[in-house]
């Protein structure tokens, strides 16, 4: 186990935006089949971490390494990262008026997995079963991407994309915020089923232990001021929920 190449390896990552350093040396390793969680207060750099791994063009990486199964990600364009198996469920999914959901999903599957996956009955069956599982009405397919979606609907739509794109590494940025109780359960069950015992992995960014209670992450990391200041098991999430972040501040 110790010698295997990690699925995601972040080493001494320094990154920022507009000349301001936000991530100040992040180290994080996720092995295949593992689910990790990141917690931390507002503005601590969680979304920044996710954006840098996905390749948001506004962020500058000053130093450090990010690899997926040993392959350097930092030199790849975001769409190449997506095609290599990285998926990000956005904290604030963007709307694209005029772009139909069904169309968008087929195009995305085609881009990420290849044309063959977007054709014929296989795609249609998978789409049908996935939207049923997530409780998304069929009529959504003819709506426009995230246009006028409620907060929870946006999050369910992110998970629908996750299910269809079958990534190696799924990063979920506060997907649980805005989801109702059943939604959290469904998503948690889905993540567990698609990661545990497979070669994939997940990084769950959250403020609440509720989703972690269902998922039972392998590790929980605490991010403060752009650094990981503590790492533990699921118990750490409970502890944080009780005590807040102050006790970790000066660590």
């Amino acid at each position, binding site marked *: 186990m110790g010698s295997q190449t990690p699925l995601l390896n972040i080493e001494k990552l320094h990154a920022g935006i507009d000349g301001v350093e936000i991530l100040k040396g992040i180290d994080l390793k996720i092995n295949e089949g593992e689910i990790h969680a990141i917690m931390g207060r507002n503005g601590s750099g969680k979304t920044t971490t996710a954006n840098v791994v996905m390749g948001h063009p506004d962020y500058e990486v000053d130093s450090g390494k990010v690899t997926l199964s040993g392959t350097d990600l930092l030199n790849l364009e975001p*769409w190449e990262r997506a095609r290599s198996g990285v998926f990000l469920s956005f904290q604030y999914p963007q709307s694209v008026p005029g772009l139909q959901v069904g169309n968008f999903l087929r195009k995305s599957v085609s881009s990420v997995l290849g044309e063959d996956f977007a054709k014929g009955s296989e795609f249609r069956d998978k789409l049908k079963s996935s939207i049923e599982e997530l409780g998304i009405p069929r009529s959504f397919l003819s709506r426009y991407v995230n246009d006028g979606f409620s907060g929870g609907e946006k999050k369910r739509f992110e998970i629908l994309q996750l299910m269809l794109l079958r990534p190696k590494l799924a990063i979920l940025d506060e997907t649980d915020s805005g989801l109702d109780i059943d939604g959290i359960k469904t998503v948690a069950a889905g993540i567990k089923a698609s990661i545990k015992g497979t070669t994939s992995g997940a990084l769950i960014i959250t403020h609440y232990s509720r989703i972690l209670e269902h998922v039972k992450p392998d590790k929980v990391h605490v991010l403060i001021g752009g650094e990981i200041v503590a790492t533990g098991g699921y118990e750490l999430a409970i502890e944080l929920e009780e005590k807040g972040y102050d006790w970790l501040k000066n660590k």
Partner: protein
Amino acid sequence: MNLKKRVTIGSKINNLGDNMAINEEARDAVGDYKAGWHDPENSTIRFDFGLSEKVVRDISALKEEPEWMTEYRVKAYNQFKDRPMPSWGNSEVLQEIDFEKICYYLRSSDSTEKDWEDVPDDIRNTFDRLGIPEAEQKWLSGVTAQYESEAVYHSIREDLESQGVIFLDMDSGLKSYPELVKKWFCSVVPYTDNKFAALNTAVWSGGSFIYVPKGVTVEMPVQAYFRINAKNMGQFERTLIIADEGSSIHYVEGCTAPTYSTDSLHSAVVELVALPGSHIRYSTIQNWSANVYNLVTKRGIAHENATIEWVDGNIGSKLTMKYPAVILKGEGAHAEVISVAYSGKGQHQDAGAKIHHLASNTTSKILSKSISKNGGRGSYRGLVKVSPKAENCKLNVVCDALILDEDSRSDTYPTMEVSNPSARCEHEASVSKVSDDQIFYLMSRGHSEEEALAMIVNGFFEPFTKELPMEYAVELNQLMALEMEGSIG
């Protein structure tokens, strides 16, 4: 130079092999604008540059026109001479037009053929490249193809002909149905309307003449394709469509020209007469090369319970000034103007709509979408008027602009003159920019930056594209994808 354009409007895109070969050839010939190749000019008649009463009379004589038409032309010419340039639109660019350096009449083929085989080879090749014959077979009721000043090809499906539908080029229309033409010519757009309408009336040549008899529905669209090939050419087609009571027709128009370093002028007049209960839809996608001034007057009159719809796409040209108009003359008439404009480098699309509610219970809808990129400029200019006697009118105006970079510009000049208090008016306008976050979202789903931008742009145009026949919609999306190619800095 990032502008890339391609036109195979009307052609089926699954014939990829062919189109790609065409594109490569075209690109070799002219750079990026895909319809920008030109053929050697083999004119049979070419007038000298410049305009005079003699030129006007010569055109009329050449066409062996009735006296009244010659007189119309001469009166219109005098009107043109006396009128100042319009003060709206882009007066700076308008001043660049040198009316003395334009050829007002050029004929490349001696006749209008009914069979593509009989069209001179070089001209036929052009339309083959544009995919017109193929489109005709697959989804059109009739086609007219105009090359320079004259129609070179013309056909209509026999079943329509036997139902009494007239679909001719305008010159043949005048020859075969002089009374009908005389009755309606200039009845919607008088030559006194504006300088360019006067110019068109003076030197018009080609265009379409359509009459749909009472109660006849033309199911598949008819198409006209206008191609300018020569340098410094002026194309002045004149189109007149009359839909008799309860009839219905969809007319589609496409246009391209080669890319030259000197400018050409396209100044058309289109008149629509929708008699009671009839329906006319007029769809245009103009993709003129960026050296064409496109100054067009389009207007329709809708009688009781008739509907006129202008679906107007402006992708090409250097300067377009075009405001499709509808006069709602009869009770219960309805007007719709749906337009999109794309303004790239060096382009100004000054487009919009004009609706005049003259009668009660008339309704109108304007939807204008404009995109500016690479320093391009898009303007929406709209006028909606409700006359004092028109009760219970409903009008709805929506204009949206999408600006793709800092150098580009978008303006709206909406005017509403409502003189009857019972009117219900709605007006919405928005200007938006494409954000990095939006692009990033799409890129994270495996789409390249260009694909992402094209998805956003096509989405923005979607309310327009969904009104087009499917073949056109696909083509427009591809055209826009090409416009977005290489646009990422």
